[in-house]
């Protein structure tokens, strides 16, 4: 990927025509913004936005033992949920460090469809194949699929207009296969914004027409394309982890505050022993959400201080368009990670700005 010309998603042309600012991201040319990050962010919070997330990787597990393999790879339980459920989960190394965080779509016990981070795709596939030990088929289907996320309070209306009223009854984190204009698409009620809506996986050659149809049929709902910039601020307000920033192979799901995805009692899985030990011995640090109480925007890598002592580092930061203040995430040593703690963010030596640890999510959503 390094040095190579980035690839284009099936929607590249549409983004350029719409005035998207294209940047290389995880090996693809992706739109970072269209009308502006703040405006796009607020559009998703108040109406509906479309995201091209075709850069995401798709890995399919098939075979009679597929469920056993996925169960071993992931920390979350994929055996108990019924087919048709989407399951968010980290995949860990034996050390408990996070290989990737992903969504597993359980088509059937012998058929799982995993959506993984674009930047981790090659690493994941190697790890999955190695750990599958030939017990099921593992195939990287990333190049076959485009993915469009439709997110916002008006997203269910828009999806119903395009895919039929049946989709309105879908519960969160479920999915179904639909035929749309003679293409088979997977429609899931998943997302990365904290809003209602869904994500559509579909063949590349069907992407441009669906994108155009969504824009056209959602015009009166206020739909517009949204770039990766707003995707980042939207997920940050919800404290959804971003791989490579808030989580990586040096952090565990327990530290990252996603311990609910670690099912220690489901049977053995990769990382279980290490995570069990960490749970028993207690954490030394955790990923906190904080709100700035003084001027300055926290950025990844900035030091977090308490009484001039370094107690952690920022992993994500931005100005929250919904809250109107800068916010961030970062690992903070105990006991300074407690909700209500006052911490300092070292703005690259410029000065230390006060921040307060808060209960996540940063943005409280009313139902």
């Amino acid at each position, binding site marked *: 990927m390094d040095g190579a010309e980035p690839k284009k998603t099936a929607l590249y042309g549409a983004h350029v025509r719409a005035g998207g600012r294209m940047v290389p991201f995880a090996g693809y040319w992706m739109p*970072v*913004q269209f009308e*502006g*990050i*703040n*405006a796009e962010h607020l559009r998703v919070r108040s109406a509906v936005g479309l995201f091209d997330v075709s850069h995401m990787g798709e890995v399919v597990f098939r075979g009679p033992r597929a469920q056993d393999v996925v169960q071993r790879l992931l920390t979350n339980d994929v055996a108990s949920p019924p087919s048709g459920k989407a399951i968010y989960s980290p995949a860990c190394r034996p050390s408990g460090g996070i290989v990737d965080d992903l969504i597993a779509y359980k088509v059937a016990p012998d058929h799982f469809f995993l959506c993984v981070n674009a930047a981790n795709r090659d690493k994941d596939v190697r790890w999955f194949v190695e750990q599958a030990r030939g017990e099921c088929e593992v195939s990287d289907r990333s190049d076959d699929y485009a993915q469009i996320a439709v997110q916002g309070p008006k997203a269910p209306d828009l999806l119903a207009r395009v895919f039929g009223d049946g989709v309105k009854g879908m519960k969160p984190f479920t999915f179904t296969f639909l035929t749309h204009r003679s293409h088979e698409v997977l429609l899931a009620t998943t997302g990365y914004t904290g809003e209602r809506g869904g994500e559509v996986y579909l063949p590349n050659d069907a992407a441009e027409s669906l994108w155009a149809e969504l824009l056209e049929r959602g015009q009166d709902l206020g739909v517009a394309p949204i770039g990766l*910039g707003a995707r980042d*601020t939207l997920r940050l307000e919800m404290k959804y982890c971003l791989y490579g920033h808030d989580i990586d192979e040096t952090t565990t799901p327990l530290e990252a505050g996603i311990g609910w995805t670690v099912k220690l009692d489901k049977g053995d899985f990769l990382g279980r022993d290490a995570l069990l030990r960490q749970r028993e011995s207690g954490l030394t640090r955790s990923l906190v959400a904080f709100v700035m109480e003084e*001027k*300055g*925007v926290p*950025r990844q890598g900035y030091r977090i201080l308490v009484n001039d002592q370094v107690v952690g580092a920022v992993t994500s930061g*931005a*100005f929250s368009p919904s809250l109107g203040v*800068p916010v961030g995430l970062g690992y903070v040593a105990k006991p300074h990670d407690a909700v209500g703690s006052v911490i300092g963010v070292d*703005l*690259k030596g*410029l000065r230390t700005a006060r921040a307060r640890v808060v209960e996540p999510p940063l943005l409280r959503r009313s139902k």
Partner: protein
Amino acid sequence: MSVPKDYRYTETHEWVRVEEDNVVAVGITDYAQEKLGDIVSVELPRVGDEVERGEAIGMIDSQKASSEVIAPVSGVVLEVNDLLNDDPSVINSDPYEEGWIARIEIEDMEQVDDLLGSDDYEELVGRLEEEE
């Protein structure tokens, strides 16, 4: 992309406008604000600060990045644009007028002559955009 003719520029995308003898206004260019995107916070210098050409006198935070404002000239800060504390997005909407950052008193006006003229700056920006 706007590059006013009567302004002077730096290679780091600040502008300078001569206000009166020995006083200049300083800001960032249209190109700079466009590249930064939504500006969410501005760190201004303090009135009375002695600033040295080439050193950071402030910080501009956009949704995407934090970027230093480099002093285009040496002198003393006479005034800062407090409006930016309340509404930093003014730099996006009007970088050359309402979005000014500081007024600086300088000893010799010759410093201004060393800066880029509008034609040179326009050429620089053209080159940068081509590289993208």
